[in-house]
C-alpha cells in the first residue's frame, strides 16, 4: 500500500513521461521540427514556418490521442474492478460494438465526420443502456450476469458490423476498417475527450478506497461500510461514458484498456487511489507514442493506431503473463 507521498512522486514521474510523449508527437512527422522550435510554436511564436503544422495539426491530434489513451486505461481499470475480473477491458461489455455499429452505419450512409461521431456515440450509449437494463432485470445485477449480457451484446454488434462490412461498397471499406482498428487522423477537437478524462478521474477519486474493497468482494466490502450497489452503478457509468467518448474520438483502439491497468498494477500496486491516475497518464503516454509511430513509420502512409497498440500490446502482455504465473 503506497503512502500518499510515494503516490505523488510516482504520478509526477508519469506526468513527466506524458509531457515527453506529447513533445515528441509535436516534433515528429513528415516535416520534423526541432525541440526549441516546437516549444516556441506552442508558446505562440507565429514567425516560424512549421508553427502552423505544430499548433493546428499535431497538437490537437496528440492531445486527442493522450486523452483517449487515458480514458481507455481508466475505463479498463474500472471494468476490472467492477467485474472482479483481471481479463476485463473497456470493450468487454459491448460498448465499442455499439459504437462500431453506429459509426459504420454513418460511414455507409456517407455522413460527414460529425455525423459519424454522433452515431458512434449514440451506438455506444445504446449498448450501455441495453446491457445495464438487461443485466439489471432481476435486480441481482451479479458480475456473471453483467459479463454474460455484455459479451452477448458485443457479439450481436459484431455480427451487425460484419454484415455492414460485407454490404459496403469498395470505396467506403478502407474508412470503415480504419475506424474499427482505431484511427486518430479524424480527431480534430481534443477538448471533449480531455474534459471527459478529467471528469472521469474527478468522479472516481472520492470512491477510490471503496473500489479497493469492492475488487476484493461484494459482501466483504458491504460489511466494511461500502454502499456497494450505488458504487457499482457509478463505476459502470464512469467506465461506460469514458469508453464511449474514447471510441467516438479514436475508434476501437485495442489493448490500451487491457494492458495499461495491468502494467500499472505490476509497477505501483493495486491501490485504485494511485492506480487510476497512474493508468490515465500511462495510457495517454502509450497512445500518444503509438499514434506518433503510426503516422511516421511508413510516412506518408498512415497506419491505423490500433494495429500498433496491438502489435506492442500482445508481446508485452504475453511477457507479463509468463513472468507472473497465477
Amino acid at each position, binding site marked *: *500500500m503506497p*503512502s*500518499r507521498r510515494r503516490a505523488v512522486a510516482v504520478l509526477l514521474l508519469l506526468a513527466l513521461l506524458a509531457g515527453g510523449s506529447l513533445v515528441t508527437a509535436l516534433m515528429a512527422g513528415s516535416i520534423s521540427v526541432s525541440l526549441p522550435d516546437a516549444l516556441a510554436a506552442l508558446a505562440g511564436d507565429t514567425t516560424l514556418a512549421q508553427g502552423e503544422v505544430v499548433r493546428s495539426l499535431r497538437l490537437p491530434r496528440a492531445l486527442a490521442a493522450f486523452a483517449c489513451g487515458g480514458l481507455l486505461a481508466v475505463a479498463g481499470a474500472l471494468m*476490472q474492478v467492477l467485474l*472482479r*475480473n*483481471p481479463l476485463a477491458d473497456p470493450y468487454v461489455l459491448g460498448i465499442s460494438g455499439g459504437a462500431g455499429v453506429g459509426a459504420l452505419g454513418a460511414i455507409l450512409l456517407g455522413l460527414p465526420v460529425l455525423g459519424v461521431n454522433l452515431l458512434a456515440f449514440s451506438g455506444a450509449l445504446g449498448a450501455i443502456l441495453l446491457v445495464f437494463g438487461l443485466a439489471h432485470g432481476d435486480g441481482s445485477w451479479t458480475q456473471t450476469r453483467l459479463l454474460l449480457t455484455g459479451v452477448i451484446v458485443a457479439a450481436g454488434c459484431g455480427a451487425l458490423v460484419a454484415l455492414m462490412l460485407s454490404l459496403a461498397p469498395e470505396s467506403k471499406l478502407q474508412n470503415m476498417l480504419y475506424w474499427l482498428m482505431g484511427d486518430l487522423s479524424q480527431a480534430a477537437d481534443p477538448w471533449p475527450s480531455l474534459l471527459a478524462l478529467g471528469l472521469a478521474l474527478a468522479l472516481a477519486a*472520492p470512491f477510490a*478506497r*471503496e473500489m*479497493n*474493497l469492492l*475488487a*476484493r*468482494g461484494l*459482501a*466483504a466490502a*458491504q*460489511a*466494511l*461500510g*461500502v*454502499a456497494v450497489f450505488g458504487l457499482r452503478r457509478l463505476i459502470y457509468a464512469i467506465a461506460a461514458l469514458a469508453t464511449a467518448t474514447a471510441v467516438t474520438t479514436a475508434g476501437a483502439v485495442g489493448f490500451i484498456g487491457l494492458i495499461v491497468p495491468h502494467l500499472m*498494477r505490476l509497477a505501483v*500496486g*493495486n*491501490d485504485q*487511489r494511485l492506480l487510476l491516475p497512474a493508468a490515465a497518464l500511462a495510457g495517454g503516454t502509450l497512445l500518444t507514442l503509438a499514434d506518433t509511430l503510426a503516422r511516421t513509420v511508413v510516412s506518408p502512409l498512415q497506419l491505423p493506431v490500433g494495429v500498433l497498440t496491438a502489435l506492442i500490446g500482445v508481446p508485452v502482455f504475453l511477457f507479463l503473463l509468463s513472468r507472473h504465473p*497465477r
Partner: protein
Amino acid sequence: MTALLEARQLTVGIGGREVCRRLDLCLAPGERLAILGRNGAGKSTLLSTLAGLRPAQDGEVLLAGRTYASWGARAAAQQRGWMAQSQADPFSSTVLETAMTGRHPHLGRWDWESQADADLARAALAEVGLAGMEQRETPSLSGGERQRLSLATLLTQAPQLYLLDEPLAHLDLSHQIAVLEILARRAREGAAGLAMVLHEPGLAARYCDQALLLYGDGSWEAGPVAEVLTAPRLSQLYGHPLKVVADGAERWFIPA
C-alpha cells in the same frame, strides 16, 4: 445496558424456504453465541442477516438498539465486523494490505492509512501468528493462513460485535484453540459480543455461553449452552446419534 445485537421476531428465508421463524435473540457485551446446524440449514444466511447484509423477511435486527438502516453503512461497520467463509481473490495483494482493509470504516473519505493503522494491522497479524508474513502475496497463502488473515482483518477493524462464519474452517487443532482464545479474550477484556457458526459442539460448549440450534425447517432453539447442548438435542439436530463424554466440567459429543 443496551444489547449489542438483538433479533426481534426475526424471520429469515432463502430460496422460498424458511431458515428461522420468529427468532428472538439478545447478545449483551461480553456474551458469546454459537450457531449450530446441519449443512444447508441456513446458518450463513442468518448470520449475514444479523450483520445487516441481507434483508429479513419479517421482524427486525437491532445493532446497539438501532436498526442498520438508521445507523448507515459506515457507522454500522465501525461497530460490527463480519467474517465470511473464504472466497477467492481475483487480484493479488499483500498480507498487510489485506489486513489494513479493516481500517476502512474508521477512515474519512480522503484519508490515507496512517502509521497507527499499520501498527494495528501488524499487531493483529502477530496475534493470529502471521508475523513476518506482512509482505507475502495472498495467493501464496495456504487455506489456514488465509483464514487467519481474515480474522486478522476483522481484529484490525476492531468492532464491538463480531459475527463469524465458520472461523475454524481450514484450521489445525492448535490454531482452532488459538483463534477461540483470541476471540474469548476480546469478549472478556474488550466487552465484545461474539456470534459464530461452529461445527464442533464440544468447542461451542467450552467457548460460548449461549447456543442457537437451527433445524433447517424454520424451527430453532436457543439458550444457555448447558441447557441447549445435550446429546438428545444434538442427535436430532445433526440427524445422527451422538453420545456425551464428560471430562470434569467439559463435555464432548462423539458420534455413536
